[in-house]
């Protein structure tokens, strides 16, 4: 019987073993990059809104505190979207006749809500509560980025589980004093690692086991 394989087949077999590992690794790497890409996570995607509302103007230029509109951020799971009346606190006088504000005016006139496009859309099997994060020293800009520089709000982070866990595994790297929660210019480097560890003790942060337990976020 003739040889089925010629001599060179041995080398092909050896090379193929390496190639499988390398190619498999490449494919896996490509998968992780695609899964984290803004194409799939909608990161950095500015969404068209019914009103050209600019956080850059209201927060950055006017210095209005986050809580003026997002009133329930300290007390509830949802930070709270302002009712149209909150807009009218100022815009009953300012730019009251501007066509840009017509959707706001008509919402107020007809008592119908403005249909905002949700920017941060967590999957609904994940439980999230703003108030506990704010109470434990996680500032707005830690997750939302520098909102005061965003004419149209976009998602600053991937909102993927690995991103949540990067902080839940090591919250001391990200927390800040309670007085600086709403400071958009805060940098993690403003405190030393030791100071942040102290802060974590002061906040009585839960153990790693509890913070990374499945049922902390999937309940």
């Amino acid at each position, binding site marked *: 019987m003739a040889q089925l394989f010629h001599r060179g087949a041995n080398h092909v077999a050896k090379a193929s073993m390496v190639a499988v590992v390398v190619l498999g690794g490449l494919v896996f790497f490509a998968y992780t990059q695609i899964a984290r890409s803004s194409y799939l996570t909608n990161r950095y995607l500015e969404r068209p809104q019914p009103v050209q509302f600019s956080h850059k103007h209201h927060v950055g230029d006017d210095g209005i505190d986050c809580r003026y509109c997002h009133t329930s951020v300290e007390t509830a799971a949802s930070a709270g979207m302002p009712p149209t009346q909150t807009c009218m606190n100022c815009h009953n006088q300012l730019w009251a006749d501007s066509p840009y504000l017509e959707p706001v005016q008509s919402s107020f006139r007809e008592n119908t809500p403005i249909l905002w496009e*949700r920017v941060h859309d967590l999957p609904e099997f994940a439980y999230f509560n703003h108030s506990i994060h704010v109470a434990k020293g996680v500032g707005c800009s830690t997750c939302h980025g520098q909102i005061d520089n965003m004419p149209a709000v976009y998602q600053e982070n991937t909102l993927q589980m690995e991103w949540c866990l990067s902080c839940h595994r090591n919250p001391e790297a990200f927390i800040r004093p309670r007085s600086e929660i709403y400071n958009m210019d805060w940098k993690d480097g403003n405190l030393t690692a030791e100071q942040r560890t102290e802060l974590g003790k002061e906040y009585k942060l839960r153990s790693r086991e509890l913070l990374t337990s499945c049922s902390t976020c999937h309940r």
Partner: protein
Amino acid sequence: MNNPGQVESKKEKGKGMKKSLVVALLLFTFAFASACRYDMQDQPRLKPYKQSDFFADGKGMRDLPEGTVARGQLREDKVFYTGKRPDADPNVQIETTTDPSGNTLVSSFPNDIDYIPMPVTKEVLDRGEQRYKIFCIVCHGPVGNGDGMVVRRGYPQPPTYHDDRLRNAPVGHFFDVMTNGWGRMNSYASQIPPADRWAIVAYIRALQASQNPQGFGSEDGARQTASNANTNSEAQNTNGPAANTAGNGGANQ
């Protein structure tokens, strides 16, 4: 020889059919599994502010029916929740004047209480400062002169806190304006809970003291201011002096 072969080929045929069945089943399962994923991402339950096709107005969050009282929200303590005296007369005529920038100013305060109906501690004042700097500072400015950022952008200037009219106004007036609005100012009742409104009132008193140290600094001055306030409301308020001291004492801390 032929028969076994035939049997074998039949067996193989059967194997092939089984295989394709398994593949079909797997495909079926995966098709549903991927559907499950999206079902779990966007579940049929309603999160806050989500739209709903079920209700005619499209709102997933329902407005409370008129007159609903949640547990602990009965608001029996009328004085605390309105800033008005228990025997307040809703039909009483309030005197007003108009200032050059077109604001209608209240100059008589017949119904407003002139004491803060909760203990004013350092914590309350700090809370008041914090809340003032969120909600009030935008128009009334950091010290209450009425030069906030929104005013600089063109909003009509509100009256300053630092004139005799508002220094002598009973604290209930400030609470009432926050609760119900006045002039161009909208109600802030939905943005600021009642206890925080009183904390802000206390902080406004502290601001007034800071801008008029002669009036509040010395005991004589404090007494004088207190008695000024009393002359405004003495006729209606039976426990005026004691209560007023409490109010001013809070602001002085």
